[in-house]
């Protein structure tokens, strides 16, 4: 068998100094219109940051068809797929002074770009390698049934990303061939990337940043722990 | 005084007989030296130093001057290690396997002549014997691979079996040319022929078969490279795929035996190659006016081994040089190479030699 290309040193790789025609916002609007013509009202919301990026949120049911439509429209390159948990963390960063008044934890769920109604969302990114444009596509995951259509038959690479998402967020994927854990042991309980999953490393040890400067004996403690020694002049 | 002794020495040489027991001890000691000295020398010279220099580093420098005692230190380390064996291993033969490999090396050295009288045995069919016992190590390797109860070892053992058998054939065929030219299978006779022979009437340089049998020499050395499982033919060991293949489960002393056997065999095969193709222990007899083996001066028994060792180290140097420079073949590529290239080539070489022998 002869080698596919005989010359081991191909000398004519394409050469460019400047980026090839970069996508404008007109192109991004065209993408939305094109997608709307395929999946119609399933597009819930869109957002374009000028000369930068494009977000599209589709309805839960249209997750698979939207992916298919985008793939047909030239978005053949699968970048990633993952989940989002919009609930604010009840634990904070673990860097609170225990002597302080405990703050009321924020429980209001506020979704990011293109909004949403549910606590969990899945989002994925696809790229059109010819037009050099990418799109982030989002969908709500119903709170009562955390299951989405799987993209793994659409984009083979989604297989692993969905497994990861399932293990980290507990979001199931219908028609996924093999939804085992990737990282964690099979009998692991809980979904680590959910905001209500505590990060043990920050729980088991007291924060060393707690002010540990003993006050002067028999002196009032109103003074700030930080001394003004620094501004010596 | 010394000069006088030296002058008188040849006269009583034929009568100077050694008792049988002393001869036996001499032979055992000689055999150990002829196996272990090359092994140690090769490991230090090539594995520690040449490889390091080729990679722009110095190699071991701490144990002894320039790290020359490093091998002894390593031996000490290996001796101390626990003699581990996998739970499911077939213990008796698992423990036997390294010894079989080492024994085959000792069996090989038996026929290598180091001087006109300095041999262990002088078989009439020396080269036949050498090729025959050279394959014994395959048994050891297969046993090691099978008895380790490890899939990597098994794959390595099977690869080794297939490879060593495939390369036995070109090796035999390559020596055939030499045997035809020398009209003998006795290694000492082959050396004598090389050192008394002449090429197109020029006898000044003798007739080392590397010149007339160059193709045979190449095939022989390639086959040796494969027999020794050195890169580019090291797939039975293949540390990056099979994690050292049949040696995976061996540790401590038993690994040491494998290790010594590997390099000792490299030395012994190079001894044989030197005897077959490079004129062995001899210098062209014409230089000193000798006619045949019987004429050779007594001191060749002491100079001969030095010449042999020099040639051996040169050949091993080439083997190691190749080893440190090349990536390895795939198993099927290796078999293809043996059966489709080397064997036809060796057959053609034999045929041409035979025809020329008859014609000339």
């Amino acid at each position, binding site marked *: 068998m002869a*080698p*596919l290309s005989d010359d*081991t040193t*191909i000398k004519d*790789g*394409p*050469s*460019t*100094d*400047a*980026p090839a025609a970069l996508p404008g916002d007109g192109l991004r609007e065209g993408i939305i219109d094109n997608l709307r013509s395929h999946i119609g009202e399933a597009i819930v919301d869109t957002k374009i940051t000028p000369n*930068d*990026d494009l977000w599209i949120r589709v309805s839960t049911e249209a997750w698979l068809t939207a992916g298919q439509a985008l793939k047909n429209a030239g978005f*053949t*390159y*699968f*970048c*990633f797929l993952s989940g989002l948990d919009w609930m*604010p*963390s009840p634990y*904070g*960063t673990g*860097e609170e002074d225990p002597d302080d008044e405990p703050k009321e934890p924020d429980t209001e769920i506020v979704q*990011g770009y293109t909004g949403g109604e549910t606590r969990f969302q899945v989002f994925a*990114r696809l790229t059109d*390698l010819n037009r*050099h444009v990418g799109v*982030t596509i989002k969908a709500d995951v119903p709170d009562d049934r955390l299951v989405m259509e799987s993209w793994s038959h659409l984009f*083979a*690479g989604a*297989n692993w990303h969905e497994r990861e998402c399932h293990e*980290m967020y507990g979001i199931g994927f219908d028609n996924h061939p093999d939804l085992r*854990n990737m*990282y*964690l042991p099979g009998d692991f309980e809980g979904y*680590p990337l959910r*905001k209500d*999953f505590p*990060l043990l490393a920050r729980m088991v040890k007291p924060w060393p940043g707690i002010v540990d400067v003993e006050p002067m004996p028999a002196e009032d403690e109103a003074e700030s722990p930080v001394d003004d020694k620094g501004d010596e002049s | 005084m010394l000069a006088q002794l030296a002058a008188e020495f040849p006269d009583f040489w034929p009568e100077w007989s050694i008792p049988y027991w002393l001869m036996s001890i001499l032979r055992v000691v000689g055999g150990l030296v002829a196996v272990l000295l090359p092994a140690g020398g090769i490991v230090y010279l090539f594995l520690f130093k040449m490889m390091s220099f*080729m*990679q*722009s*580093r110095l190699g071991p420098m701490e144990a002894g001057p320039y790290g020359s005692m490093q091998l002894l230190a390593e031996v000490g380390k290996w001796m101390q290690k626990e003699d581990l064996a996998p739970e499911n291993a077939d213990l008796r033969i698992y423990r036997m396997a390294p010894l079989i490999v080492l024994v085959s090396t000792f069996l090989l050295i038996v026929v290598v002549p180091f001087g006109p009288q300095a041999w262990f045995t002088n078989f009439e069919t020396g080269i036949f014997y050498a090729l025959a016992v050279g394959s014994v190590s395959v048994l050891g390797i297969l046993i090691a691979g099978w008895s380790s109860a490890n*899939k990597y070892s098994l*794959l390595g053992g099977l690869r080794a079996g297939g490879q060593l058998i495939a390369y036995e054939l070109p090796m035999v065929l390559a020596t055939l040319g030499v045997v035809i030219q020398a009209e003998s299978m006795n290694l000492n006779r082959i050396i004598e022929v090389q050192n008394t022979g002449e090429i197109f009437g020029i006898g000044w340089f003798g007739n080392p078969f590397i010149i007339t049998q160059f193709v045979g020499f190449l095939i022989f050395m390639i086959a040796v490279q494969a027999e020794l499982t050195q*890169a580019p033919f090291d*797939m039975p060991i293949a*540390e*990056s*795929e*099979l*994690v050292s293949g049949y040696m995976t489960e061996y540790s401590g002393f038993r690994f040491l035996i494998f290790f010594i056997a590997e390099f000792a065999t490299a030395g012994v095969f190079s001894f044989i190659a030197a005897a077959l193709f490079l004129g062995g222990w001899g210098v062209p007899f014409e230089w000193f006016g000798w006619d045949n083996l019987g004429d050779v001066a007594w001191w060749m028994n002491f100079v001969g081994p030095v010449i042999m060792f020099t040639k051996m180290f040169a050949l091993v140097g080439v083997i190691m040089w190749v080893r*440190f*420079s*090349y*990536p*390895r*073949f*795939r*198993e099927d590529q290796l078999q293809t190479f043996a059966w489709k290239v080397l064997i036809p080539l060796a057959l053609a070489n034999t045929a041409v030699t035979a025809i020329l022998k008859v014609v000339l």
Partner: protein
Amino acid sequence: MTLTDRQQLSYIASQAADARLNVELETEGMTLNIGPQHPATHGTLRIICRLDGEQVVWAEPVAGYMHRGYEKLTEVRTFPQVTTLVNRIDWLGSFANEVPFILAAEKLMEIEAPPRAQVIRTILFELSRIANVSLFLGDLGVQMGAITPVFLAFRDREYILNLIEGATGGRFHPNFDRIGGLKDDLPKGWIEETRGAVKKLEQFCDTIDDLLFGNEIFQSRMRGIGIIPADIATDYGLSGANARASGIDWDLRRDQDIPLSYDLADWKVWTHPDGDSWARCWIRLQETRESCKIVTQLLDQIPAGPVMTKVPRIIKVPEGEAWVSTENPLGEMGYYVVSKGGLGPFRVKIRSASFNNISIVPWALKGVYVPDVITILASLYFILGDIDR
């Protein structure tokens, strides 16, 4: 897409392997665990292979032995603290990991680093690519039993690491990039030193070309093995040199508008039509040469000025979402940063190249022999920290 003969053969072999699994077997297959402790897995990847003889009929990588949960850890860290984490994702080209994250944060804050910082960023980015890929080139030999190249690679990578350490203070984990610029300017004499080191690396590329790529044994091991057609590559999200080796002309340094100074240099994006192991390795060799070229050119074009814009002492990133990806040594590495206006990110999705690159392994290993498993894995080039994060 038209398939070449070789690609068809590869398909046929994998199909045959599939068929063999489905029929009643007279012989029993063997399951071989390659890893998690195995010299060819660059760490702790485990590949379960079902073998028929030495032919792989089914293979699956098992990742996760090194999962460090960085996406969770980012939730309890401030933006400057996250940089130290992402350093450790692809630990061979660590500066390159910082850049997309910092760029994403800068995008949310709507600031841009000063031009001097951008050029220095680009230089360090390319230097970490050289450091990363040169080790790949050396390691490639080890996977095939040639032990000399890896020592040469370690030797010459040292020049680059010394440079990175000289400028940033960290050999492997520079933590030099800051939101709004760089931590510090370059020390005196660094530019001259870099010129010398880059020349050495160019020589290293030539040495490797002679020692390894020119070797007929190496070529026979790599040519036509592990062919990945372009459509499969995009399906799995292969990026970087792996995608370009399949003929996909896609390089994020060139094909996106990003505040790095690649447009100041004249360089090439190499592609190869074959998509086999050889192509992937060869592309990386060429890329190292291109990187050397980029660095040499940019060294002359460092503008004068500050390396840091004005940013508040305590950085609070405004609410929003941003996605920035760059062409890292291993492929496309991106960060999807969600900020809620706090000191730290609300969520960071780390899209690492190796995760996608290695997910193709079950497809690519079907029907190949055990020795080819090693070469295909080596040519796909993954780093465990980049898979597991």
